[in-house]
């Protein structure tokens, strides 16, 4: 890091500011880190102090020239690599479709993963099938890896009668227990500390299960972040704690949210190995997560990592970032686009081409459009049908208690 933090005022106390507001010139310090900068310590013996450089540097695999380099190169086989590329593309197409549909009122609201697709996808691919995924709204991509049915995802987003959470939560708040994808909750940060418990329960039962969870740069200011890190430090459960630093929390740049611009290193003092990872480098994200999983295999417990990335789109469908950041800020971001970077790498490797890419995009578009059409047969937010009003009263408790039963009868639906 070492970047100078930009401030609006230091008098009487510091109030930070982003590198640029809409009328300024966006600035990001160029990345000097190279894939060859950092060693890959043995995960089965590595201690927290051994990761000092990894917490302060940046783990990369894909070079600017789109080659895979350095000790962290996971040497991914071609099929897996293309699979990952496909999931990222799928998520992007999916997000685009949903945003379009949101504009027509079929969904109340939507949140894209734009620019951050590599994270949940590469990470889920690096984990075992039985591992628990405890996401925020910015990691829906994990579901593609685990093979969730698209129609079911869309049923949820449009809140129709087939929504598996019965129209109770806003779109993007997926639940999918079968895929070990734990219910998304709106209060930011809560999952981070809860993941400790999930991992401890797996360990308690003697199962080979890990739990991965994420928190945003913004939400890492919540108490839950500290609980998670300190409890992970204390009990050493099989958990992977990921701070997704996409630079922004709605309109609040990380320069306003903390004075320590490096999130990764926070775990060192808690005796947890820490990695800072190029979040837009599919291979680096995969490799770092695989390393963390290997630590868990070795019985060593938690890893803390920062995924350094950039929120390329608006916070949500309700947000217009051009009010608070430069409209072209994304163009100045030196970290590139995760899909584009992996695509170029695959092309360079000779296993992919522009034509194949376009063709796949088209297939995905059709697949998603088909799923969408299938889903809205079950209704959508604009037109219904919705889950019946009776679902308001069920599953509040295991059994409906008398007072809720009375209320249900009062509603008479």
């Amino acid at each position, binding site marked *: 890091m070492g970047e100078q933090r930009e401030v609006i005022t230091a008098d009487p106390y510091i109030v930070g500011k982003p590198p640029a507001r809409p009328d300024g010139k966006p600035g990001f310090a160029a990345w000097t880190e190279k894939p060859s900068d950092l060693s890959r310590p043995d995960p089965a013996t590595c201690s927290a102090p051994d990761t000092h450089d990894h917490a302060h540097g940046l783990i990369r695999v894909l070079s600017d020239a789109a080659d895979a380099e350095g000790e962290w190169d996971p040497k991914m086989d071609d099929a897996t690599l293309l699979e990952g590329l496909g999931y990222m593309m799928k998520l992007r197409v999916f997000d685009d479709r949903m945003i379009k549909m949101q504009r027509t009122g079929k969904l109340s609201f939507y949140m894209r993963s734009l620019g951050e697709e590599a994270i949940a996808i590469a990470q889920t691919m690096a984990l075992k099938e039985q591992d628990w995924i405890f996401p925020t709204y910015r990691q829906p991509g994990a579901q593609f890896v685990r093979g969730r049915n698209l129609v079911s995802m869309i049923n949820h987003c449009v809140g129709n009668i087939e929504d598996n959470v019965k129209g109770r939560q806003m779109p993007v708040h997926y639940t999918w227990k079968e895929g070990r994808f734990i219910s998304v909750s709106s209060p930011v940060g809560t999952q981070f500390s809860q993941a400790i418990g999930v991992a401890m329960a797996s360990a308690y039962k003697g199962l080979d299960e890990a739990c991965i969870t994420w928190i945003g740069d*913004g939400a890492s*200011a919540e108490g839950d972040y500290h609980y998670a890190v300190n409890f992970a430090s204390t009990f050493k459960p099989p958990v992977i704690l990921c701070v997704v630093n996409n630079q922004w929390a709605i309109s609040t740049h990380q320069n306003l949210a903390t004075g320590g611009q490096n999130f990764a290193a926070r775990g060192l003092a808690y005796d947890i190995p820490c990695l800072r990872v190029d979040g837009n480098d599919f291979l680096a994200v995969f490799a770092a997560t695989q390393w963390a999983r290997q630590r868990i295999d070795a019985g060593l417990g938690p890893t803390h990592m920062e995924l350094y990335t950039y929120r390329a789109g608006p916070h949500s469908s309700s947000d217009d970032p051009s009010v608070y950041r430069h409209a072209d800020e994304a163009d100045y971001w030196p970290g590139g686009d995760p899909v584009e970077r992996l695509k170029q790498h695959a092309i360079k490797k000779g296993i992919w081409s522009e034509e194949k890419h376009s063709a796949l995009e088209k297939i995905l578009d059709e697949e998603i459009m088909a799923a969408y059409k299938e889903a809205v047969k079950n209704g959508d937010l604009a037109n219904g049908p919705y*889950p019946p009003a009776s679902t308001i009263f069920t599953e509040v408790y295991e059994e409906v208690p008398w007072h809720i039963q009375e209320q249900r009868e009062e509603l008479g639906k």
Partner: protein
Amino acid sequence: MTEMNMIQALNSALDERMNADEDIVVFGEDVGFFGGVFRVTDGLQKKHGAHRIFDAPLAEGGFAAMAFGMGINGLRPVMEIQFADYIFPAYDQIVNEMAKVRHRSGGEFTCPVTIRTPAGGGIRGGHHHSQSPEAQFTHTPGLKVVYCSTPRNAKGLLTSAIECNDPVVFFEPKRCYRGPFYGDPHNVPTWKGHEDADVPEGYYEIPLGQANMVQEGDACTVIAWGTMVHVAQQAIKDCGISCDLIDLQTLVPWDRDAVVNSVKKTGRVVVVHEAPKTSGFGAEMAASIQERCFYHLEAPIERVTGWDTPFPHTTEWDYMPSPSRIAEAIKRTQEE
């Protein structure tokens, strides 16, 4: 007088107070440069400076603590919780700390903090963008609890809240930010032309503890706050029964005289709120009214409230009290 929507009225109260009182500082998530996700603080950073109004780190408990510290050290912080659903990480700082510091310190330290927060449903917010947690604060001695309902009382009450030397939790019905809501999601009027959209531009206060008699009648007393004031008004119109409609405005301390006098007149009461029924503030209203007006009551006090369930997303119109549910309740009070 200027016509304002509720957002403008709140902005105007903040602006006027910040002009008048150097000790006021404002913070919360996204309230600085951006002006808040609902735009209530729009333009204020430019006017008053980033040292007076700024974005806080995303930690409600953290900036509540900061507000506490500023409050006991002579400032008058106004903090925004982006959605009332997210006030709970700050709950300990509010109920154990802010509420008790005057008392626990023998009056040596006081905490004049105002906590503004958009609350309530009607915006398809689901579980965690729709709650109306006022009752979770009315049980804590030391806190004042306010719930505005119109641009006019939003300004008047916020001014008083900021001037108050006690901590105030100030709820804003987000559904009414841009217009009143009469219970029909397909009817989305703005505040334009509404008499309560006429708001004084300068200093304007409505004392805390004072209810607003929205309309008078003699057959039933309807008590509501926030969005439900407008929904209840629609219900009264729909059922054609002559009612006192009391907008409570301040829940703690509530306006005893306004309520008791009305109930003594009508003998019938309907309390309306969005929050779940069990232990909602309607319970306190009902309990207190029957204590004070027992021999005047001609029918059971009715509560029309949200259900005792989480707040749903797609089916929210089946959750929020509707004009027809309220009208039914008013009618039931007349049957006896």
